[in-house]
């Protein structure tokens, strides 16, 4: 694939710089750390701070979710690589309005370690930090080992719910409880049709042969559960809905939010083709769609494919989901 590239080593810094310029009404760069993007209005005195972070290459995640009633500060890592503990602690400090900070992030080894170390540093600085770890990727581990599952696009709902709860003036423990309930109510699945390449590596480290698809693929190309022949969009949509809802026994009448995200190189119109079928399949299970989001919300460089996330709503989650927000990604 041909790329818009200067020096591959500068790609993350240039991405962040361009993002902050383009969205200066929403975000600013932390003055002491160019790998921390801060919501324009943060920190808000007396409000629980919301922090996330992760590797680059998933844009608009993670930086695109910094904004009002959403994430206060985002730690930015190298492509597909956890931010430093230093960037996490700097994000925590930037988000700290004196009421504690909730770090809401995805279940990956590097992020777990760096957040843990940042949390210890924050304790020394007298900042109370609590964490919620997203694990919505159904195919990454069996249901009875849910703690091992990776976090994918469900993280967006976790940030949305946690951010809205914090904006209401809730305490740290209340914010964390709502964010935890949000991710517990999320299930996601990915289907990959083509791999992605880190510019510095120069070749994809996994392949999907033409005519094949990988069901259950992860956000960095982690292997899926099935490699099979590419089917029609409707058949793929049916399979994705089946995987997500079979893992999550929802009573008929449950309202859900649905997020269909492209993985980077799939045209947006194909995402709508998937959604056309997905909504019908969800309805056929006796569920109703309260809100749908279709577009490139959480990508993986130029991977071809899509993820589907279903969030089961209750009264509180529905109310918080509907809170107005101002950020670039949502």
């Amino acid at each position, binding site marked *: 694939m041909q790329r818009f590239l200067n020096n591959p080593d500068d790609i993350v810094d240039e991405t962040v710089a361009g993002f902050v310029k383009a969205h200066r009404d929403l975000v600013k760069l932390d003055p002491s750390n160019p790998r921390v993007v801060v919501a324009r209005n943060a920190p808000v005195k007396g409000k629980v701070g919301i922090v996330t972070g992760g590797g680059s290459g998933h844009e608009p995640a993670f930086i695109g979710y910094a904004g009002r009633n959403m994430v206060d500060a985002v730690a930015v890592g190298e492509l597909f690589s956890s931010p430093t*503990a230093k960037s996490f602690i700097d994000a925590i400090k930037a988000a700290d309005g004196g009421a504690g900070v909730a770090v809401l992030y995805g279940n990956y*080894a590097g992020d777990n370690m760096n957040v843990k170390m940042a949390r210890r540093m924050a304790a020394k600085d007298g900042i109370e930090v609590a964490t919620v770890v997203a694990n919505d990727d159904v195919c990454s581990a069996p249901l009875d080992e849910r703690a091992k599952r990776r976090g994918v696009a469900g993280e967006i709902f976790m940030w949305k719910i946690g951010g809205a709860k914090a904006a209401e003036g809730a305490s740290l423990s209340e914010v964390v409880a709502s964010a935890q309930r949000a991710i517990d109510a999320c299930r996601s699945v990915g289907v990959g049709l083509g791999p992605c390449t880190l510019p510095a590596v120069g070749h994809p480290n996994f392949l999907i042969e033409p005519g094949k698809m990988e069901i259950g693929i992860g956000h960095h190309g982690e*292997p899926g559960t099935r490699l099979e022949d590419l089917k029609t969009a409707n058949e793929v949509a049916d399979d994705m809905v089946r995987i997500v809802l079979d893992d999550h026994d929802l009573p008929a009448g449950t309202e859900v939010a649905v997020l269909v995200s492209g993985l980077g190189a799939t045209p947006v119109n194909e995402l709508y083709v998937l959604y056309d079928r997905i909504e019908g399949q969800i309805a056929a299970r006796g569920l109703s769609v309260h809100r749908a989001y279709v577009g490139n919300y959480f990508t993986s460089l130029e991977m071809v494919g899509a993820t589907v996330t279903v969030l089961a709503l209750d009264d509180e989650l529905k109310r918080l989901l509907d809170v107005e927000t101002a950020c670039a990604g949502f």
Partner: protein
Amino acid sequence: MHAIDTPFLLLVFRTVARRLEENRDALCGLDGEIGDGDHGTSMANGFAAIVTALRAPGMAEAPPGQLLRTASMAFLNDVGATVGPLYASALLQAGKVLEARPDLPLSEFSAFVAALTDGIAFRGKARAGDKTMLDAWLAATHAARLQESLGAPPADVARKAAEAAEEEARATATMIASRGRAARLKERSLGHQDPGAVSAALILRVLADAVADTMGQGR
């Protein structure tokens, strides 16, 4: 009595930084086969950040434990991913050992290597055979302890530790990754050396050379 003191550690850090810089592209290439291709960059930049931090006024006179704490923070501040916390924890653990025993003699070299290894094991929670840097560090620790128990002189202890790490780094090619980024490839990771184990062996070789030099000079 030769000790794992500040001049020894400064020599080691400078040399490790230089060797990692020389091997930056090779390590990135290895990592590109089964990981995300940045291991050489992380290691070379991280140890360069350590060397920079250790140039600060007073560091040459600082006790070795403090030197290692400073190195740990410098690495952690510069490197993310999993490598950052792993080596930061290794250096911190070694720092704690040297704070308790500021005059740890080179004849107890295995205790120093074991502390580095403990830090990595504690932080990463990997096990032997998971195809990670820990495999090389564990092999070095076992070899160093064995040689010391046999009464080998420090230069031989350190050399055997480096050789064990190099052998284990080669052996990681026969292992299936179950931790770290390469774990996603499972059996597809067979035939590729783990870049973290290779860079660990490189560090242990520098340590062995430094021990040999120090003993040889009669410093």
